[in-house]
């Protein structure tokens, strides 16, 4: 019993010494090393906050951040002068038409949360192609070559808007997938060499090379998910008359296949979102024309 007491006493002494021996650190908690200062906001930043962040929870990232893009590509930030006009353009040609037909909160409910603007071309390595835009995880759309927009040329503005409608189509598809029957219309015509379509045997542009195969653009021939959003983006950046003219350039088989696909796209919008795609086409096409100089 006596020994047990002694052992307990020794134990207490040991713990006391041990704790005391640990109390020789000179480290103290200093000032935080995280920079939490308020960023410098320009008039443009304030405008973007008021017109995109507040109403739609969309962040317009026009300031260069290497993490926003692929560092291995030849990319650079957009010139500041073009940011506001391009932002206004996408609001009028994309947000407003969708909200008008789908409800005031359509875009704010289903939207990419970040739009990244890049000035330079995104050249694809080992390929004669460039990437016009990217959609990532349904949360971010990146636009490339925005420094080269020419508002006096409808095609110059149409291309990035086509990218927007294309990528937004992917986001809608991620929320509600389209039916499998779409991919069964031209299953054997999809090709990884889609970029070779669009030219005749002499290298001259010839849309019939893809239209006859049942594709509205060469890129549509890459896979069914791209095919779906290519029809959507073409419809929303051309008038109905222009779209019909393009389709009618193909042979009868190609025309029928494209029309069959178009019906699935139109039904998809009507059934899932209550949007008449032909009405949306009118609004987006008019907005595109209104955005020009």
């Amino acid at each position, binding site marked *: 019993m006596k*020994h047990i007491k002694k052992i307990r006493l020794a134990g207490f002494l040991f713990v006391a010494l041990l704790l005391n021996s640990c109390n020789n650190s000179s480290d103290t908690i200093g000032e935080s090393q995280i920079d939490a200062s308020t960023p410098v906001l320009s008039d443009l930043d304030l405008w973007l906050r008021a017109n995109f962040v507040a109403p739609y929870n969309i962040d317009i990232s026009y*300031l*260069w951040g290497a993490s926003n893009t692929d560092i291995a590509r030849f990319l650079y930030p957009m010139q*500041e002068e073009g940011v506001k006009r391009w932002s206004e353009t996408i609001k009028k040609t994309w947000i407003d038409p969708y909200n008008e037909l789908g409800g005031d909160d359509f875009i704010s409910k289903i939207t990419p949360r970040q739009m990244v603007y890049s*000035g330079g071309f995104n050249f694809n390595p080992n390929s004669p192609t460039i990437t016009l835009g990217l959609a990532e995880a349904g949360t971010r759309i990146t636009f490339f070559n925005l420094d080269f927009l020419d508002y006096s040329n409808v095609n110059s503005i149409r291309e990035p808007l086509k990218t927007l409608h294309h990528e937004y189509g992917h986001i809608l598809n991620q929320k509600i997938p389209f039916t499998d029957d779409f991919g069964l219309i031209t299953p054997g015509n999809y090709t990884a060499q889609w970029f070779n379509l669009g030219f005749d045997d002499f290298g001259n542009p010839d849309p019939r090379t893809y239209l006859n195969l049942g594709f509205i653009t060469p890129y549509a021939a890459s896979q069914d998910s791209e095919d779906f959003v290519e029809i959507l983006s073409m419809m929303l950046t051309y008038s109905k008359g222009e779209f019909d003219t393009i389709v009618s350039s193909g042979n009868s088989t190609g025309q029928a296949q494209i029309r069959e696909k178009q019906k699935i796209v139109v039904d998809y919008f009507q059934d899932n979102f209550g949007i008449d795609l032909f009405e949306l086409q009118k609004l987006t096409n008019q907005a595109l024309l209104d955005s020009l100089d």
Partner: protein
Amino acid sequence: MKKIIYTTFNLFILTLVLNSCEVDAVDPVFDEPPALRIRKDIQELKTILLSEPQGFSGIYFPNNSVVGGINFHMQFTEDLRVKMTSDFKEDTALTDSRYDIIAGTNAAELIFTTGSRHITDLVQDGAQFFNTFFGANSFQYVGEENGVITFKEIRSDGIFKMSPSGFTDFDTESVASANTTYANRQEFISTPLATAFPFLSMEKDGEIQGYDLNYNQFNIYALPSGFDSNDSPVEEKFGVAFTETGIIISPAVEFNGIQFEEFTLDTSSGFEYISQVEGATAKIGYSNSPPTPLDIYGYDSENEAAVLNMDEPYKHSGPYNTFFESFSNDIFFNSSLPGLQITNVIFWELNTGGISFIDIRTTYGNVFYDISFDFDETTGIVKFELTGVTNAPSFFTDAIQPLLDILIGSEAGYYTVNSGNYFNFPNKTFGLINIDDPRMKIDFWTF
């Protein structure tokens, strides 16, 4: 027994206690953690950049492997805006864009957060024409020493050094300086003193090494090549930056232990940039004869025809282009043949054994002149002579005589030299260099 247990236990406790008192010996390389050091660097850089109301001037060598140096002038303000100009393109007007100084991966970084074409043009041209990086928007802060701020561009190993501009009016003086250095860059290729033999030479203690400069105006880059005293090929490569008084090359070239980096323009005997270091001399300029053996084009054997290369004017010498432009203007306004234009010039029957002739095609029709030529395979020199057979009326010949003189009139003849391919086609191109006037290099493509 109990005593032994008790003693052993106490010794064990004592050992533990003593061991626990051991203080970790820390010998830090840096006094502060990395994040704090980067934050201090950010503050330091910010203070430096804002300390010069008249901004900074410097040369950016984006990539020593592929492109030369660009002069930049930048003026930073507290609201994160930067005015800048450069001499990369002819348009030197100031741009107003944004910048930021942030904590990068392992250093403070200066980032140009919105596009200024003075930087983005570099990236674009590198991508479009050379499929490589000519620059970037993010620069690691290396440090400041004696007023010189050094940045490093990680992706392409670029170096950007800036120092206070010394201007009294940034807006006007920066643009004027960029205009001057841009003009100096153009002058190097278009000076009337430019011959077809741009060279680099280095001399020390009587020993001389000569190179064909192989300067490319599009990436402001030189790939000098030559042969040493043992006839072994030697090569250098460096980017060039044109300053207001000379050139700076990067990386420096070395000859017998001497490094040459800064050159000053000297036009007292031709057009030369000269660098003198410790009694050794390096020169970059133009000579009247080939500095190294030429890559001879087999004029009489390789092809049947040679066509004046009107589609790749940069393969001609600047003085020839100047001549041709002036000549074209003169004949167009010629009162006897108004509107006359040369549409093509072709040498025929070069390797067939037939009668060779020069075929001059114009808006008034085609004329030909039979010629004989003598080609020396060893020297690569070809000499021409008109035989007198032609379908051209004399008044027509009078009008185009200056062109004939340039193309075939050299008494000493012409050096022939390979100049690559016609665009991406397999057709070879070659140059004729007038020995009497080596400023005149005229390029042809063949079939």
